[in-house]
Structures are given as C-alpha cells and as structure tokens.
C-alpha cells in the first residue's frame, strides 16, 4: 500500500515538474517572430493554453505506453536563445554526402543559416527561405497552411512547438514548378553550455502539379546533448509529387521529437523514407490526412537502435475519403540494449470505400537485451476496402551466418551483409545513388561496430 502511495506521489511530482517545464518552454517572449500577425498570435496563444491544460503523458497514456518521458524531463532543457553565427561553410564539410548534387539549406539549432546554405540557382517557382524572414516580409503566403495542417497535433509537444513558433525552413513550389535537383536540408545541432531545446517549425508546400525531392538530415557536432522538438507541415496540391527522405543521425546524447503532418490533395503522391540511426531518445509521429481522392502515401522506414537508444515511430494514417492508397513499410534492427517502438494506425472512415492500405513492420533482434514493442492497428468502418498488416520479429538464422562464416567471412562482416540484405528493401528505394550509397554505408558501419553477442 505504502509503496503504491509513494509511487503515485512520485508520478504526481514528475507530472508537476514536467508541466512546469513545458510551460517555461511554451513561449520565448519578445524575441518571437510572430509579433503583430494576429492569426498566428492567436494560434500561438491557443497552443500555449493547450500546453497548460493538456494532461502530461505518462506510461499510462496509450501513446506513451512504451516511451517513457522521465529521461527527457530529467535533462531540464531550456529554450535556445541566441543564433549560432560562428560557423563557416568548412565546418559542415564532414556532414556532406559525397557527390550529392543538391540545393543545400542549413539550419543551426533550429535557426535558418544563410551563411552556411548554398542554394545555387533555384528553378522558376521554387522558393526556399527562413520562416522568420517570411513572417516579416510576406506572412500572407503561409496563412492557412502554417499551423493549419498540424492543427492541435498529436500530443503536447506539437502544441509546445506551435506556442514557440520562431524560425525554421519554408520551401514553397508554385503550381507546376519542378525542382529537378534534390533539395538537401541539414538540421545541424550544436551543444551549448546547458542543455537546450530547439523547436524549429518547417513548412513544405507544393502547388498543384509541383514536383520535388527533399532530403532532410538531422546531424550534430560532436557528442552534443540537446533536444530537438520539430514540427514539419507538408501541403501537397493536386497531382503534386514529393519524394522525401529523412535521415536522423544525431549524437548519441541527443533527444529528438518530430511531428510530421501531411495533407494530400487529389491524385498527389507522397513517398517518404525515414532512417532512424541516432539519438538516445527519438520519437517521430507521422500523420497523414487525405484531402482529395486517388492520393497515395508511401511511408517507409528503417531504424537501428543500439545501446541506450530508444527509437519510436508513431504513425497515424487516416483515410477519410474513398480511393486513396497508403503503404507503410518499416524495418528495424536492434542490438545491445536498444529499444524500438512501432505504433501504426490505419483508420478508414465510413465513406472511404476502395481504400487500399498496407502496413508492415519487420524487426531483427540481435541481442538478448534488446526489445521491440510493436502495435500495428487497423480501425475500419468501410466494407469495400483492402487493408492488411503484418509484423514479424526474428533473429538472423544461425545457418545463414554459418554459411557465410564457412566461406571465410568474419562474423561482423557476415552480420553486416545479412542485416543490409534485410534492410535492402528500404535502402534500395532511396535515390539518387549517392544518397543510397551513403545510407548503406552509415547503416553498415553501425552494424559492424555493434558488439557481437
């Protein structure tokens, strides 16, 4: 009884601490860029109010059942204040993907950096810039999109981000605009004297028929300890095509939260691949809403969680309209004390007939202390649909390892080969080739370094 009471008080304390912490982060006062824009002010205030009133998630909350927040709360993150200006383009050399020909945008600690970005010549109708600048020069251009796609978001961290909207990346493609070269976005984080949280707000908006490829990368300088709480809103117009790769390769001390909110008009196609390699604690929510029929959404993912790492993907694909297709293919490799959480929900509303939804989550566990918690859910209210999901958890077959070993291949290399074979489905779909090679190498190196157990 006593223990129970203690535990309850303990939880209440943690909840209180967390609530206090959240509120402190909710806004950063005068510095904020949204001053004077009524609609945004109002959105921010509402979000701040939600932060104040929303219940603090605990492991009793369904969305946080397997993902404890204690570790995050204990860090006592405070908001990033000053932009980092000391870096030169040479400093980011180590992060570049060899031979990748792209328009490059760099954000440092959530702030758009003109000095480090090399946009090159952008095609007609393609605009890339900082949210901060845009809110000063032309706020009307993001009205009705910014904050509208994410809405209240899936949880308190999205509200927190909205309440603190300040800077981030804005990529806009006019109707029919086509960006041939990929657009690479490097989110660079640098550790500060105390643990800081950066809350970039990013926006990708493609007009009708526009096409682009975006490669987003989260990287950090050294072993920095920090938190990123980002929200990315993506609006795709009719017939638009977006190929989107997100590579999270942050420091092993980093905390990472992303909410990706996607709105798809009729006939458009979104193909997203999420590669989760870094961070000590990473939570990603991918939320899709179909706003028109015959739209397609393809979500792929590969995560590698090793010692002291938790990687969590939550997916919410909502079919409210008929004739849309969604596909989720996530694969995970776990070793050491690595933990992964996969929580996918496909919701098919009453009128969403002819929905075609597929979800698959496959996991390889390489060590006795690794853990995977997976929850692929279907919620279906329409009868003429094709929906399926599949999950597997398994290990490398000893026979396969033996086969390779007997041909003189070292154990670590054999394991790398087998795991890359397993992950091939995700990696091979990446393009261009330089990106594919880079990701395969990153994943391969991590696997080879992983302790053999």
């Amino acid at each position, binding site marked *: 009884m006593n223990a129970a009471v203690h535990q309850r008080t303990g939880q209440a304390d943690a909840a209180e601490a967390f609530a206090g912490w959240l509120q402190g982060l909710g806004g950063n006062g005068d510095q904020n860029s949204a001053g004077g824009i009524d609609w945004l002010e109002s959105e921010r205030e509402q979000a701040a109010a939600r932060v104040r009133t929303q219940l603090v998630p605990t492991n009793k909350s369904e969305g946080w059942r397997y993902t404890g927040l204690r570790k995050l709360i204990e860090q006592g993150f405070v908001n990033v204040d000053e932009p980092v200006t000391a870096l030169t383009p040479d400093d980011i050399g180590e992060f570049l993907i060899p031979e990748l020909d792209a328009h490059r945008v760099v954000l440092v600690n959530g702030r758009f950096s003109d000095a480090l970005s090399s946009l090159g010549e952008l095609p007609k109708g393609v605009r890339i810039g900082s949210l901060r600048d845009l809110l000063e020069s032309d706020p009307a251009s993001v009205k009705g999109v910014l904050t509208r796609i994410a809405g209240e978001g899936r949880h308190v961290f999205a509200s927190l981000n909205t309440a603190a909207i300040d800077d981030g990346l804005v990529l806009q493609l006019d109707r029919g605009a086509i960006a041939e070269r990929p657009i690479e976005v490097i989110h660079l984080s640098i550790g500060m004297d105390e643990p800081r949280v950066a809350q970039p707000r990013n926006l990708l908006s493609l007009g009708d028929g526009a096409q682009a490829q975006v490669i987003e990368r989260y990287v950090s300088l050294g072993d920095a300890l920090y938190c990123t709480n980002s929200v990315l809103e993506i609006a795709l117009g009719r017939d638009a095509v977006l190929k989107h790769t997100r590579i999270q390769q942050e420091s092993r001390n980093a905390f990472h939260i992303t909410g990706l909110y996607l709105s798809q008009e009729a006939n458009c196609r979104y193909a997203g691949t999420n590669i989760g390699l870094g961070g000590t604690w990473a939570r990603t929510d991918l939320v899709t809403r179909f706003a028109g029929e015959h739209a397609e959404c393809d979500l792929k993912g590969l995560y590698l969680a090793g010692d002291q790492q938790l990687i969590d993907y939550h997916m919410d694909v909502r079919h409210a309209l008929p004739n849309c297709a969604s596909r989720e293919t996530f694969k995970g490799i776990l070793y050491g004390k690595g933990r992964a959480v996969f929580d996918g929900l496909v919701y098919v509303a009453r009128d969403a007939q002819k929905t075609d939804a597929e979800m698959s989550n496959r996991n390889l566990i390489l060590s006795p202390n690794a853990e995977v918690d997976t*929850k692929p*859910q*279907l919620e279906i209210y329409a009868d003429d649909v094709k929906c399926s999901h*599949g999950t597997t958890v398994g290990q490398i077959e000893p026979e396969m390892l033996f086969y390779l070993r007997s041909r003189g291949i070292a154990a670590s290399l054999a394991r790398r080969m087998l795991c890359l074979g397993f992950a091939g489905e995700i990696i091979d779909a990446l393009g261009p080739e330089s990106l594919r090679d880079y990701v395969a190498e990153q994943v391969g190196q991590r696997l080879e370094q992983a302790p053999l157990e």
Partner: protein
Amino acid sequence: MSAIPAEATTAEEKVETTGQYDELVNAGYEHGFITEIESETLPPGLDEGVIRTISARKGEPEWMTEWRLAAYRKWLEMPTPNWASVHYPPIDYQSISYFSAPKKKDGPKSLDEVDPALLETYEKLGIPIEEQKALAGVAVDAVFDSVSVATTFREKLHEAGVIFCSISEALQEYPELVQKYIGTVVPPTDNFYVGLNSAVFTDGTFVYVPKNTRCPMELSTYFRINEAKTGQFERTLIVADEGSYVSYLEGCTAPQRDENQLHAAVVELIALDDAEIKYSTVQNWYPGDENGKGGIYNFVTKRGDCRGARSKISWTQVETGSAITWKYPSCILRGDDSVGEFYSVAVTKGMQQADTGTKMIHLGKNTSSTIVSKGISAQHGQQAYRGLVRIAGKAEGARNHTQCDSLLIGDQSAAHTFPYIEVKNPSAKMEHEATTSKISEDQLFYCRARGLTEEDAVSMIVNGFCKEVFNELPMEFAVEAQKLLSISLEGAVG
C-alpha cells in the same frame, strides 16, 4: 446434445434473393422465450451484507467469505475499464440482484424431482437431459441461472477420479483444492469485473483431473440466464494435474429480454506438467433487438496458466451473441515447452459490439503460441481484435504466429485490429498478419453461376473463412457452430 435447435432454418423460411443484400433482415432471436419458475432472489443492491448472505446461503467456509469481502473492498476502489472500443450507458451496480436460485424442494435426487418447467426450458434449448445418459460421451452440468440443478455421469467420472461439480459443491467437498487454486490465475484485483465476480459469484463449475488421467468424456456446461435483472457471475476453475487431459465445452443461450443483463464470469484454467486443457465455447446470448435494445453485456475474464512444463491450453470460441462482448481468453506460458492456442470466430450484426482477443504471455523457454482470429461484422456490427503477445527476456526460443482476418458485410459495419507485440528476447520468432476485406464479387459470382442462392453462397464463403477455427472444435460442436453461424448471418446478408 444440441444447444441450438437444428430446425431453426428451413428452406421454406428462406426468402429467395434477387441479388439484393437487404431483402432478409428479420431473423429474430431463435431462443427468445422465458420460463417462469419461482426463484429465490435477493433484492437488488450490493454491500458487505449481501456478500455475507450469499456466502452463508452457500454454506461456504469462513476463508471464502473473507476472500469475497477482500475482493469487494478492492473492487470499490477500482475504476471501470474504458479502453475497449465498445459503448454502453454506465451500469448501476446497485440495481442488480446478486443472487437468484431456482427454488429447492429438499433438493432433487433425480431428474423426476426437477421442476418440470425447468426441464421444458432445456427441451426448447435442445438439451435433452433425460437422454443425456443414452447419448454418448457428454456429461452436462446444467446451470439454470446460478445454481446447478442437474448433474449427470457423476459416477462414471468418479470412477476415473475426475471431479466435475458445481463450485459451491466443491467448496464444501473439496475446500482445500479450491483454496489452493482459486484466484491464482486471475487474482481478484485483476480488473473491475473480476473484482465484482470474486465478491459475488454464486455458482460455476469446478473440474479437477488427477495425475495421468485422460478424462473419459467431454465435459460440458450449458449456461442460461433467466431471472430478470440478475447479473450472472459464474466462476469456473479447471485444474489438470500432471499428465492429464480434459476437454471442456461451454455453450449458452438466453431468453429475450428488454433489460440489459450483465454477465461477468471468470474462468481459470491450470495445467500442470504435461497436462492439456481444451476449452471450447459457443456463446449465443441474446444480442438485443435490431435497434440494440436489450441484450447481454458479456464482460468475461478467461485465463489459462500453463504452469507445468510441456503443458498445453487451447481456447476455441464461437461468439455470435451478446450486445457487448468484452473477452480476452489468455494463456500464461510459464512452463518450458508449453503451448497456448486461441481460435476464435466472432460475429457481430445488428447493433452488436465485440472487443475480443487474447493475450499470450511467454515466460518459459521454447514456448509457442498460435492465434487465429476471424471476425465477421455485418449491418451495424462493431468488432475489434485486441491482443497482446509478450515474449519475456527469459523466454528463449519462443514462437508465436498470429493471424487475424476480418470480413465486412455492409458499409455500416466496422472491424478493428489492435495487436500489441512486445518482444524482449532475440531468439523469439513472432509473426503477425491481419487482413480486412469483404466477400468478393468474383467469389459470389462463381457460386451463383453454379446455381447456389446468394444466401447459400455467402454462408458457404463465410464458413470457409472460419474453417480453421471450426476444425478446432469437438465434432458435435463444430456442426452446431456452423449452423449457428448461418442462422446468425441470415438477417444480415441477403
């Protein structure tokens, strides 16, 4: 033998279809009739006094009374579970009468002394008690409301050393066995409904199969809720000692009522080393009328504990009744090399809601489990599979295969899948697959082209869809289950 009258559907009754799905709508509840017999019923309400009264009436030992009271006190602090995807108005637990027993006239010594009205009810249900002795292999412990009134084949079982009796009787005759095992699989604090059941259960079944004994016949209990406004709180406890085998059948129907009736049963299975328990259920309680009025709330906790090495527990269920079903027959695979199985067919139509599934908790080495769940949702039926597969860190070589398929009939029906999979061991192998679909036009066309009516075609396809589960049922049950399925879907598909 048959819990379902076989003559329920005749060819004449079937309306010829013209390709329209909505032609046949009103297949009323086949077993909706009420037998009026005098009952000894406690007034509605629940407090410690009621529990003491129940315990005293049953002549239970002191420890049992205390056990009930402890459960009650915990229950008062427990919240009602609200995570299932079912919707119903709050239940007033004080408006329920917690005890109802058919009046005893010095206790019937043989069937002749049993209230004729009661016997008639069984006849209507197709449980010919008089003929039971002549029928091969099945002993029936018939539960009418809450007290067992007739038990057959006791002697034969007794010869084999198998104890098969009501739990009240067991509490008097084998108190030490009951005390040793009751609440060890499903503790009274497990959940809200278990708490309530533990406090007020009035009857149920107790089975004990001694070491190295194969139970000579299939054991069977038919439940029937009859007295208006009485919740039914059954408690079943089955213990299979080392090297034994038992197959238990549970089947139920209920008379038509307007009042929602609560049913919160608890079933505990314990399998020791090398023992096997096979538990089959056909549930066909009153589902409510086409507007969802009335119908049984079926909030059941069933759990099996594979306590011994190489033990096996297998759950098979065919769920076609009840307004709301909330039920997750589970297996705790504690013993090394133990096996858990769950085969389920659930049908929801009209306004029925079902949230059902299983939990397979792998603790021992080389444990394996199989889950096959088939859901059929028609009209406004709402259905969810909710399951957990947990492979603990020490469960070396654990294996699970899960398959849940849903079939949707009509655009107002719904089917959901909420699987939870937690794996903490690298040598585990687990697979989960789920599909949701409707009966394809091609399949229907193929059958129709060969002269089958649309209704027969649908029935055939649905039976094929459920075949994997029916195969697991004891043969007589399997035949009934198929019939039941056809009857259940009759109003739903044209």
